[in-house]
């Protein structure tokens, strides 16, 4: 029986198993099939994955060098383009769309020998915090199928949670990797803005989006980050800063660092008392481990979600204008006499309600007469937040907080109230607003049986420290 713990162990296993990749892929195909009810996968590239596994097994046994991700089974959130494969952003408007190119991140994974096993379900166009907004059905939390896995990268999270893949990719614009990781009890990280190329990531909010990584093992996540990171000729916003040896740092044990947490976060009226208590106890544990942990003032908590929604809906409304039924995607044709009717019918029938809401709000904040009061205002607040962040990191090495104020909620519980759903992001949007790398580490279990984690943020492009700290936190 094939079992997986980490890429390192898997590669050892491959060393003595000439058909090791095939074993792995067969195992996951069966697991995905057995867990169809979770609805984590929209499509499984079974035949192709088996073929690739066979090729990799052959190359390896013939003595060719193994790539760093040789035979590693990866699944992709349905917003990441893979040439020759369908990608739909979990939306009817892209039903049957086949990508003609691969995301840079995917090309880099493949170049190191990864096997892409399928695409994961998610909230439509990554807009949501529960994975209930998919046009292809809700994703269920494997720990408790009456609960949401979180969103928008719910399918990717469940894929790792339920052992349907080794690692998976999601996207994180306001917490869409960290929050599902928290709800599903696994590791989920978002790199610094610009660390991984966004070329091939279907854009939601261009200055917030990053591809994120789910895994059960810190080193796995670190290797994947190393492989995908770095500048890219197709993305002007990708950083040219050198890529550090994240994997190496993911094995380190450190102490003595200065860690901040926001007073207002733990005092927030919406925080679940168990989460608050667990975090406070953990702060003490960290102090006992030799870290310096201090509460600081953060007056911005009430403003960060509004700022986030103004800016992301504005960018999104523009990013989604290309879905017009002309060159690809769904086009409504019945009773259509003219162009504008075609646009309106295609988009109204193709986009789900939450996406339409955000498109409307985005156009509202950008429209003449409101632009200064909303959009410019939000950009100014973002600047203030950025400056404040720089000040914090002059004194501290890292910031911690609970990832989410409450554990995974029941299916349907929040789907009628957009604003209530938005507030679930309150602890995670900060990292996207100011571009910080952030990870959710599974440390706790709620009395209701659901997992929850701790969020850790370090300064821009200090993922190595983030991994070292995470490892130190996870170490018993």
């Amino acid at each position, binding site marked *: 029986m094939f079992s997986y713990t980490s890429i390192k162990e898997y590669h050892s296993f491959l060393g003595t198993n000439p058909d090791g990749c095939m074993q792995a892929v067969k195992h996951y195909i069966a697991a995905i099939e057995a867990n169809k009810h979770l609805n984590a996968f929209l499509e499984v590239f079974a035949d192709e994955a088996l073929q690739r596994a066979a090729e990799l097994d052959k190359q390896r046994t013939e003595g060719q060098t193994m790539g760093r991700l040789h035979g590693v089974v990866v699944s992709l959130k349905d917003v990441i383009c893979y040439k020759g494969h369908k990608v739909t952003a979990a939306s009817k408007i892209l039903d049957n769309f086949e990508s003609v190119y691969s995301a840079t991140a995917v090309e880099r994974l493949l170049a190191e020998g990864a096997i892409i096993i399928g695409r994961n379900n998610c909230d439509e166009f990554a807009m949501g915090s529960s994975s209930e907004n998919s046009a292809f059905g809700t994703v269920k939390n494997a720990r408790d199928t009456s609960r949401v896995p979180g969103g928008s990268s719910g399918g990717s999270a469940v894929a790792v949670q339920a052992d349907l893949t080794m690692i998976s990719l999601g996207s994180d614009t306001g917490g869409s990797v960290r929050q599902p990781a928290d709800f599903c009890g696994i590791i989920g990280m978002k790199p610094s803005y610009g660390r991984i190329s966004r070329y091939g990531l279907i854009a939601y909010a261009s200055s917030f989006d990053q591809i994120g990584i789910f895994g059960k093992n810190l080193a796995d996540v670190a290797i994947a980050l190393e492989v995908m990171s770095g500048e890219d000729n197709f993305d002007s916003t990708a950083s040219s800063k050198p890529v550090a040896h994240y994997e190496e740092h993911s094995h380190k044990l450190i102490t003595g660092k200065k860690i901040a947490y926001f007073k207002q976060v733990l005092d927030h009226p919406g925080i679940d008392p168990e989460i608050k208590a667990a975090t406070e106890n953990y702060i003490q544990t960290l102090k006992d481990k030799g870290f310096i942990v201090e509460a600081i003032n953060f007056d911005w908590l009430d403003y960060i979600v509004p700022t986030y929604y103004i800016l992301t809906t504005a960018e999104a409304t523009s990013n989604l204008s290309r879905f017009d039924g002309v060159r690809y995607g*769904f086009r409504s044709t019945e009773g*259509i006499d003219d*162009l504008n009717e*075609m646009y309106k019918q295609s988009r109204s029938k193709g986009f789900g309600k939450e996406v339409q809401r955000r498109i409307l*709000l985005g156009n509202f904040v950008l*429209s003449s007469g409101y632009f200064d009061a909303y959009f410019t205002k939000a950009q100014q607040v973002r600047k203030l937040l950025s400056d404040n962040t720089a000040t914090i990191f002059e004194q501290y090495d890292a910031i911690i907080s609970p990832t989410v104020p409450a554990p995974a909620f029941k299916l349907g519980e929040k789907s009628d109230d957009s604003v209530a759903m938005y507030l679930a992001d309150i602890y995670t949007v900060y990292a996207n607003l100011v*571009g910080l790398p952030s990870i959710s580490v599974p440390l706790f279990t709620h009395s209701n049986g659901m997992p929850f984690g701790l969020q850790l943020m370090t300064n821009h492009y200090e993922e190595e420290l983030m991994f070292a700290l995470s490892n130190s936190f996870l170490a018993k």
Partner: protein
Amino acid sequence: MEVTEQMIQHLANLSRLSFSDEETKAFKNDLQGMIAFVEKLQEVDTTGIQPLQHMGDAVNVLREDEIQGSINRTEALKNSPIKDDTFFKVPKVIKK
């Protein structure tokens, strides 16, 4: 501020979306809630603050003037709902 149905119609037009009367009412309520939520920002004093327009540290990112990356026409037209082997096709702008 108050959100009217007229505003929704205007925004729908800008967004190239079209709604039934019930949908318009529903979106009006939704947007009313969302706008009320984001109005909170008015409390923040932002006098003299430069809006943050670009994220990340990238500056002066330019590419060489080289020809590359084009795909063949079949690939380009492949996903289009209505086309022939040369052009994308759309209904004419004005109703006949």
